[in-house]
């Protein structure tokens, strides 16, 4: 069970809703992923062509918890404004704080992320900041009262997987709130590794939406996250330099 603030979830997969080939494929992918938390962005509505379909409006919003993000914000003040706009919809209390500090790498601005987190915690939001894999920053975000920390595995949409498992394991070790690995996941193996390291959940988007078969990949990610979690709970064996036989040495019928 994944617990974030006052909310509990069976699924440890958080799914993004951007860049799917079609709404039909997206709906099916969301369904098979069994994700209960879906992320969204907040944008100006094209009111002059308002008949354009909207994915959220095709969803049963009672079935899912919405996690809007503050993507597009470059300062804490902009992130706080987007968060308040999202909350005014009356559809959600959670917010993914995302304050980008570098256009090329889309890495977060740590100082503005911390400021926005402090402010939104005071305002009563359930706050999940997207952060780099900085161990000290993750601690400070927790001290600021965030409800989960979401370190990136590698740059957003890069599919490079976990480039610093050591830092990620340090963050997990010292965490007092759930750790959700967010961004950079490319394959089911990456998602499973995040869970084996002890992460409480994985948030991904492009790995599914841009896969050759998004529906099949959504299923693969669900299974990988479940397998990784089970593996973590089971406790893996230590690595040894040399072989240890699995079959008994005694009672051989030859020689």
């Amino acid at each position, binding site marked *: 069970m994944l617990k974030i603030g006052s909310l509990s979830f069976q699924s440890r997969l958080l799914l993004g809703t951007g860049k799917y080939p079609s709404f039909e494929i997206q709906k099916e992918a969301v369904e098979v992923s069994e994700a209960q938390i879906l992320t969204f*962005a*907040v944008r100006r509505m094209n009111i002059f062509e308002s008949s354009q379909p909207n*994915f959220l409006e095709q969803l049963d919003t009672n079935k899912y918890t919405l996690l809007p993000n503050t993507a597009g914000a470059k300062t804490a003040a902009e992130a706080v404004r987007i968060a*308040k706009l999202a909350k005014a*919809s009356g559809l959600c209390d959670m917010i993914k704080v995302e304050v980008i500090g570098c256009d090329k790498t889309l890495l977060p601005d740590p100082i503005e992320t911390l400021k926005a987190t402090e402010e939104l915690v005071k305002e009563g939001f359930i706050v999940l900041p997207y952060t780099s894999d900085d161990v000290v920053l993750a601690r400070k975000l927790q001290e600021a009262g965030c409800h989960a920390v979401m370190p990136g595995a590698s740059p957003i949409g890069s599919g490079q997987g976990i480039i610093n498992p050591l830092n990620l394991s340090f963050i997990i070790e010292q965490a007092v709130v759930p750790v959700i690995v967010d961004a950079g996941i490319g394959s089911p193996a990456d998602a499973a590794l995040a869970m084996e390291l002890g992460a409480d959940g994985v948030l991904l988007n492009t790995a599914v939406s841009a896969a050759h078969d998004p529906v099949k990949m959504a299923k693969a990610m669900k299974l990988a996250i479940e397998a990784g979690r089970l593996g973590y709970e089971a406790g893996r064996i230590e690595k040894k330099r040399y072989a240890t036989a699995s079959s008994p040495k005694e009672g051989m019928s030859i020689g």
Partner: protein
Amino acid sequence: MKVLLNGEWIQLPEHIINVSDVLKHYDIHQRHVVVEINGEILTKLEHQNTRLADKDRIEIVHFVGGG
């Protein structure tokens, strides 16, 4: 009146008085939208009784796909 609506100057028809009239005018009153007037975010309940004035800056936002 003339208002700045999502970044565009628009001349609104005479009968539009409240925020809810604008939403009806654009046929988005039944959709999940959030309205901000001159930097003030409105709750849904406030749409009915928030009067618009000339040169108001109106932002109408909604949720779109994102990660």
